[in-house]
């Protein structure tokens, strides 16, 4: 599977402009947050003045005159601070969640449109983190990093600098001089910490992998008697973890120490220079206390502002990945004319949909996978009239899915056409096509939820009687009967509460309920017990009668009665005919069949 390599910084402004369309909805919220952050910063700037006022107005003149006003104003500031903090935190959450929600919906929507070839090139895990993790990071960094931390702390730093300059420029310079130093220190440590943090996470996942290996491979480990060897291997990993994690902790400790030290250093400078002018009577004692307070408190905001900036730089990667996914053009897409007439997948115009008879034709089809370099089909032609059963057989990995991919229009022919009822598949919408194809997978995929949810997957409006009938026809009624909650029984994640055979039977019922004109079956390779196999066989006959069908078969006994058998080897169709014709030819099909026959009969002998 080809993973997208991480692209280098290629977007301007940290990729933020790319996000504008998704942020539009939150414009009001962002402006309000901006205003409130400024207010919060300003309130914080003025709080140190209260001790100043207390000293200058009350303590030095030794009077309590006017203390009522003092209390009142202070109380107002406190209330404003409380409200600003509360509201701002709430808004930041809201902004974060809104961005995340919208982005997730957009990405998920896009994933529904992208073609199967895209899915073949990207692993589920990769796409899963694009849809859920990247979007989370983008939301939280923008809301908390930019609109909360950066704004608030910038406001504080700039405001404090301005106030200090206004009060006493020479003294202000003592503090201001240290700010760039602090910024550089923060930036340096921030980068280092991100790097070692990543290393720690990597080692951690290796340790988890080791546990997994030790537990899953327990039988092998015991029979080989290599417990000690694995212990040593594991210990090397944990020792490495300790070293890296301690280094990370040590960096963090050094960083925090430096931040507080810088605060004290600024304080010492203020005390020295400010003390001199205060002694000389040129500066109020209260003002000196304001300066000392700024000196101590300004370093943290600088650090947070730097952190927000560094987060923003790191966010670029996430933005780019999401952006790339959102701008990927599906390989298979309906033309505007087709959408005009039949609607798209989300807004179908069913009134214009034609019924399907079921004549399929491959007309001089040449096909090459988008990521491949050889033609797997060359000038392939095949007529499949209504009601015909086509079987596709061959070794695992021989490329049996190609024809099915073309019929389902998961891929489009490189040259030539695939026709349904005499018309090119591309002339009708994908949704129209898919609504008329029943598809049962090799490993039947059920969705978590109830049996009913799964059975009605293709046709939500099905009646109870139809449901009963379909389940009976594929001999799956006993599964439903076995469940306490019947149709409403929970199947577990991916159908995990059911056995493989049960999942298979239910997926037949699901396909039957959708009542398609064309049926595609990708048969299971895994061995199922004989009884279930017999049940599946019966169900299959039931489902296939009267429909055009394409069966990818592993058990050749299933398809002896097929009208056309295609044998695929190394991606190409090498033999073609009925069972009898191919057996008479004594070629690859004959060999394959003989071998399987032998195995099947061995099994039967045991059960006799």
């Amino acid at each position, binding site marked *: 599977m080809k993973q997208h390599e991480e692209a280098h910084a290629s977007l301007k402004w940290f990729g933020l402009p790319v996000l504008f369309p998704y942020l539009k909805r939150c414009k009001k919220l962002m402006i309000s947050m901006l205003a409130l952050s400024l207010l919060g910063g300003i309130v914080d700037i003025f709080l140190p003045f209260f001790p100043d006022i207390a*000293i200058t107005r009350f303590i*030095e003149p*030794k009077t309590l005159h006017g203390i009522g006003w003092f209390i009142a104003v*202070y109380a107002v500031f*406190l209330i404003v601070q*409380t*409200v600003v*903090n*509360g509201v701002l*935190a709430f808004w930041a*959450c809201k902004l974060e969640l809104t961005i*995340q*929600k919208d982005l997730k*919906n957009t990405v*998920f929507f896009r*994933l*529904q449109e992208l073609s*199967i070839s895209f*899915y073949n090139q990207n692993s*589920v895990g990769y796409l899963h983190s694009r849809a859920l993790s990247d979007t989370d990071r983008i939301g939280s960094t923008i809301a908390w990093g930019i609109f909360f931390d950066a704004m608030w702390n910038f406001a504080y730093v700039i405001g404090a600098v301005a106030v200090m300059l206004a009060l006493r420029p020479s003294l202000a310079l003592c503090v201001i001089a240290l700010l760039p130093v602090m910024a550089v220190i923060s930036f340096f440590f921030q980068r280092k910490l991100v790097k070692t943090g990543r290393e720690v996470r990597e080692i951690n996942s290796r*340790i*988890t992998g080791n*546990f*997994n*290996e*030790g537990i899953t*491979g*327990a039988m092998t*480990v015991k*029979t*080989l*008697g*290599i*417990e000690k*060897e694995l212990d040593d291997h594991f210990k090397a990993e*944990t020792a490495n*973890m300790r070293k890296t994690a301690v280094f*990370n*902790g*040590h960096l*963090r*400790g*050094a960083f925090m120490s430096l931040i507080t030290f810088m605060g*004290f250093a600024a304080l010492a400078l203020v*005390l*020295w220079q400010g003390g001199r002018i205060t002694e000389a009577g040129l500066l109020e004692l209260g003002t*000196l206390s304001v300066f*000392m307070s700024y000196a*101590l408190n300004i370093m943290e905001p600088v650090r947070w502002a730097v952190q927000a900036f560094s987060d923003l730089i790191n966010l670029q990667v996430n933005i780019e990945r999401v952006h790339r996914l959102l701008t990927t053009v599906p390989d298979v897409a309906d033309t505007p004319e087709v959408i005009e007439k039949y609607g798209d997948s989300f807004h179908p115009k069913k009134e214009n949909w034609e019924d399907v008879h079921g004549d399929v034709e491959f007309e001089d089809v040449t096909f090459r996978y988008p990521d491949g370099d050889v033609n797997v089909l060359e000038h392939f032609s095949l007529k499949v009239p209504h009601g015909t059963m086509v079987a596709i057989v061959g070794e695992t990995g021989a490329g049996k899915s190609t024809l099915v991919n073309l019929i389902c229009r998961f891929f489009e022919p490189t040259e030539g056409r695939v026709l349904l009822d005499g018309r090119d598949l591309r002339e009708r919408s994908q949704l129209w096509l898919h*609504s008329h194809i029943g*598809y049962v*997978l090799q490993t039947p*995929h059920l*969705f978590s939820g109830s049996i009913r949810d799964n059975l009605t*997957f293709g046709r939500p409006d099905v009646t109870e009687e139809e449901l009963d009938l379909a389940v009976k026809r594929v001999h799956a009624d006993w599964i439903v009967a076995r469940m306490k909650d019947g149709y409403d029984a929970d199947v577990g*994640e991916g159908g995990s509460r059911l056995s493989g055979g049960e999942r298979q039977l239910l997926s037949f019922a699901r396909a039957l309920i959708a009542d398609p004109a064309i049926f595609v079956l990708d048969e299971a390779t895994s061995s199922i017990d004989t009884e279930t196999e017999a049940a599946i066989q019966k169900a299959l006959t039931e489902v296939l009668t009267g429909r055009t069908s394409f069966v990818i078969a592993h058990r050749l006994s299933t398809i002896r009665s097929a009208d056309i058998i295609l044998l695929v080897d190394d991606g190409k169709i090498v033999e073609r005919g009925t069972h*009898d014709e191919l057996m008479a030819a004594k070629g690859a099909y004959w060999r394959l069949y003989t071998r399987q026959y032998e195995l099947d009969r*061995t099994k039967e*002998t*045991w059960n006799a």
Partner: protein
Amino acid sequence: MSNKSKNRKRRSGAAENRRLFASVLKGSLRFFLAGIAAAILMTGCEMIIPQIIRTTVDSCIGSEEPHLPAAVMNFLEGFGGRAYLREHLWVIAAAVVVFALFAAFFRWLSSYENAMGGETLTQNLQDRLFAHIGRLPFAWHMEHPTGDIIQRCTSDVRVIKDFCAGQLFSLVRIVLMIVLAVTFMVSMEGRLTVIAMAFMPIVIAYSLAFHVRIRNQFTQVDEAEGVLSTITQENLTGVRVVRAFGQEAREYDRFFKQNAHYTDLWMKLSTTMAWFWAFGDLFSGLQVFFVVLFGAIFCVQGSMSVGSYLAFISYNSMLIWPIRSLGRMISEMSKTGVSLNRINEILLSEPEQSVTGHGAEPTGDTGIRIEDVSFAFGKAEVLSDVTMEIPQGSTIGILGSTGSGKSTLMHLIDRLYDVPDGQGRITIGGRDVRDIPLAELRGMVGIVLQEPYLFSRTIRENISMTGERTEEERRRAAAIACLSETIEEFTDQYETIIGERGVTLSGGQRQRLAIARMLSEKKPIMIFDDSLSAVDAETDARIRHALSENLGGATVILISHRISTLMEADRIYVMHEGRVVESGTHEELLAAGGTYARIFALQYGTPEERGEVSA
């Protein structure tokens, strides 16, 4: 051993947890103690600074008599006293910097020691868990889901580490800090200290109550997130089904609704948290407010100096965040008990016992006797009264259907399970396998499993898993297993990494690598448990041929469903539903005309000869 285990069981869970905790802390306690000592020094240095400022403001800038301990006064007099300091304020600034430097150093030292403590603890606990799990009986492994064990070994270990390095450490530090600060504060103005500290219980209780309350909400959000993740996962995995049924719109709708639900839950939680923060801020603000206000009043009344006033404000603000975080920490601590319990469940499980019988001296003989062995998993009987005789140096074959119990029988020989008392016995060279120390037994018996587990390391490392091998030995093993050509096709040859992080091998290649792994070491007993099932018939024959030339007198058990694999064996046992139904040499079994003969006819005739093909 057995006495000890009974003692263990008698102890209560809480006592066990305390014992585990004590043992976990053992290796890292000194780091934590050093960390706390450094934290005390750091706090001390930081707390002196406001005192310096107080004295400076009052006595250098102002004109009050300094109130300082005699020793400090004497020291200052030596410097030239107040007058000198007034003229040379930089000395005071330098003192601040020096104390700040010490504070920074101790802060760094404290976090370094703390990290050492936490990481050492994690390392020790994880090493211990890993080693213990590796030595638990196979039956234990069958009973416990992998995901759950991993969770215990990672997340629960982290909870305990966070408890020691995070919560416990901070708690000790914060309490010390409060004590120190309060001492300084009381020395300056007792009443004001009471006013400032009055908020402490309120803030702690409030934040504790809050964190306990929202835990439930957090669980809900986590669950909703889990569902959203599952929907995405299933949609991506089942993309073909979704497309084939044309259900994109419905899937989007499902995602959209769950996303909205999840966001709503978060929004609710955010609202609660915003209120909490706001009130937290209000309490802190009020704490400062009262100190500023009453401090001013006390100053005006003359019971306090300006310098003390400023120092007081500094101390007060130093305490605000630590106090606010106390509630959260205490609430997190309650998780630790649960985690200790979960880890203890693993560590208290009895490991495999090397000898379960009476013990017996080695005899040098490797003949195996299986005498009337019965075995059941729970109520399901897997083997009943199986008897086999496998003389030293002989090769026997076992033919059997799926579920006939042949693999379980092999597992009993290698003691992955023990034959229960009174259910027959298995002996090697006359010694009951339960009397043979595990290491000796498993060193003697080599098994290739049907679905062998390979490690995601290089081919070389996989082959030499049981100890260092010379290149010669490796090549020989690979050659017998017919793996040399496959390996040569890889660019990195023996250094090719396989598995998750490297090349994916086919079923047949995996089996052959497992065979090479076993053969790389000379084993007097070799068992091939259907280990050629995924290999084609020709390769199977080549491997058997190469093998027979390299047996070196080993006792061999071959299990297969292919007659050709077994027919040359000295004796063949046919097993069905846990019993031996036929036995004898190939010729004898053919003559008997039973199951074996029927299967032979099937595998060695052509379909046409049987006239059943084009039905």
